[in-house]
């Protein structure tokens, strides 16, 4: 068990154990806080309560089987995890994914971003005492989850992206549902803003709190909205485009104040940008076309072909019994998940199972900055700062 050595050694301080069962830690984060009155003088985060050994499990699964494990890391953005993993394996294989599948991937990951930011906004607001925002946010998130259910059959652990493309063709008319949700969203985001942006309590709980300079944030490897709120416009979708993001027009919102309020405004702006990207993707997705790469032996054959073609039957059998073997080597792919830079590192030794699968989870790395954000601040700000980093403990501990 982690203990804290008191920093000052003075009789004035006390050690407070926050978590792992504490609603504002968004899961099972434990922080040992040394307090001088109400002021934090030392903070030691203690992780691992949700460690499930996903990386070790990946090593005993075939490349296709491991997809279902990736959903369970960041359970608020499962499709982003699917995407990072699939892109890494596709890079290893040298597979080209059809444009139609790429656009659908972009559309769904942007909806994931909106959904994830909505959960963040709702829970962050409830932490700071604004109850009603939570209810509105979850109302809209439900609509987005309905779209995921429509295309994949699952609301959360979709495993919809597969190596080389998608699991199945989206049902006819699905874009109509997307259109309905997307049409309503900007107005709904305006509603949240009327509740919070000028709200005096919200401003006094978030403005000037949790400051970190852009330089310090880069040195601590912070990425995502937290880094962009510190004035650094680093976004993997712009810097290292993947899945045809270079064909989309969108802004990367940045701010320079780098406090909890700035991070709130960044995420609100990002939701609006995501709506724009979803709109563009809807216009780009061709009505017809393949959703999987043409790679026999790696991509499962179509059901009809299996009934008429010998090769298809053999490939189907081989893919689901022994899997496929990428060439030896490693691939590291980073994408912009709602929380920041999500990296997938896959090393292959030429066998059907990965030699090593590693996920660079943005929550884990960003959480490292927490002690810096809350040092010398009252304990109430700790709640605001945990919320503003936007961690998902499933991804921190993996």
């Amino acid at each position, binding site marked *: 068990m982690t203990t804290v050595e008191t920093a000052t050694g003075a009789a004035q301080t006390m050690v407070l154990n926050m978590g792992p069962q504490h609603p504002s830690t968004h899961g099972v984060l434990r922080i040992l806080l040394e307090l001088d009155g109400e002021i934090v003088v030392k903070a030691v985060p203690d992780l691992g309560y949700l460690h499930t050994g996903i*990386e070790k499990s990946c090593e005993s699964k075939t490349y296709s089987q491991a997809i279902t494990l990736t959903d369970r890391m960041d359970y608020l953005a499962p499709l982003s995890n699917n995407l990072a993993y699939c892109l890494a394996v596709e890079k290893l294989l*040298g597979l080209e*994914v059809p444009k139609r599948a790429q656009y659908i991937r972009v559309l769904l990951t942007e909806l994931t971003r909106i959904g994830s930011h909505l959960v963040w906004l709702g829970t962050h607001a409830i932490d700071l005492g604004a109850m009603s925002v939570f209810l509105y946010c979850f109302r809209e998130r439900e609509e987005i989850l309905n779209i995921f259910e429509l295309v994949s059959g699952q609301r959360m652990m979709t495993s919809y992206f597969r190596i080389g493309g998608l699991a199945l063709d989206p049902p006819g008319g699905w874009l109509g549902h997307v259109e309905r949700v997307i049409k309503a969203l900007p107005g709904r985001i305006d509603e949240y803003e009327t509740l919070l942006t000028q709200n005096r309590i919200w401003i006094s709980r978030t403005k000037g709190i949790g400051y970190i300079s852009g330089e310090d944030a880069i040195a601590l490897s*912070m990425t995502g909205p937290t880094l962009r709120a510190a004035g650094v416009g*680093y976004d993997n979708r712009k810097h290292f485009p993947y899945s045809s993001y*270079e064909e989309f027009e969108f802004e990367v919102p940045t701010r320079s104040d780098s406090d909890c309020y700035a991070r709130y405004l960044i995420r609100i702006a990002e939701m609006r940008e995501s709506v724009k990207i979803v709109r563009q993707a809807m216009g780009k997705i061709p009505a017809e076309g393949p959703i999987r790469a043409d790679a026999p032996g790696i991509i499962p054959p179509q059901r009809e072909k299996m009934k008429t073609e010998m090769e298809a039957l053999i490939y189907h059998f081989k893919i689901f019994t022994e899997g496929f073997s990428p060439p030896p080597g*490693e691939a*590291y792919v*980073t994408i912009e998940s709602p929380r920041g830079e999500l990296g997938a590192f896959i090393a292959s030794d030429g066998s059907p199972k990965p030699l090593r699968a*590693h996920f660079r989870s943005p929550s884990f790395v960003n959480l490292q900055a927490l002690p810096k954000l809350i040092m010398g601040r009252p304990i109430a700000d700790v709640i605001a700062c945990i919320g503003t980093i936007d961690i998902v403990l499933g991804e921190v501990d993996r």
Partner: protein
Amino acid sequence: MTEIAGQDTTLVTGRLREWNAAAVESVSEFRGEITIVVPPSLLRAALAFCRGDAALQFNLLSDIVCVDHFPIEPRFEVNYHLTSIPRRDKLRIRARISGDDPVLDSATSVWPGANWMEREVFDLFGVRFAGHPDLRRILLPDDWQGHPLRKDYPVEGYR
């Protein structure tokens, strides 16, 4: 899949060789990703050079990943994934170390953000980092026996 724009093997290896001819043990490229193997003794200095050099500007340490090649020696390879935000470039720096006494110099003095990444590698692989300010287990309990991501640690049935 998009190739990383602006990757230039010659620039990075050239700069590193100029700085110290012994720093580049080997260079390889696979699927557009450059890997430079550096001797463990020069690792920390090479990382500091990549970060500080005006022509390279690898200012972000994206990740540290360890791979266990058991039973091949040197057994562990530790990969440092660097990103240059201004130059939009990526690089992998790799150090190979033996399984007998796996120690590397800590990169925490170059990037404070290496702290938890190195603790994770230490926790799951048992690779130690000399000069790390707080080298404790991070994901597993403090009294855990063994390092689970090593290849000789079974998926189940060990304890």
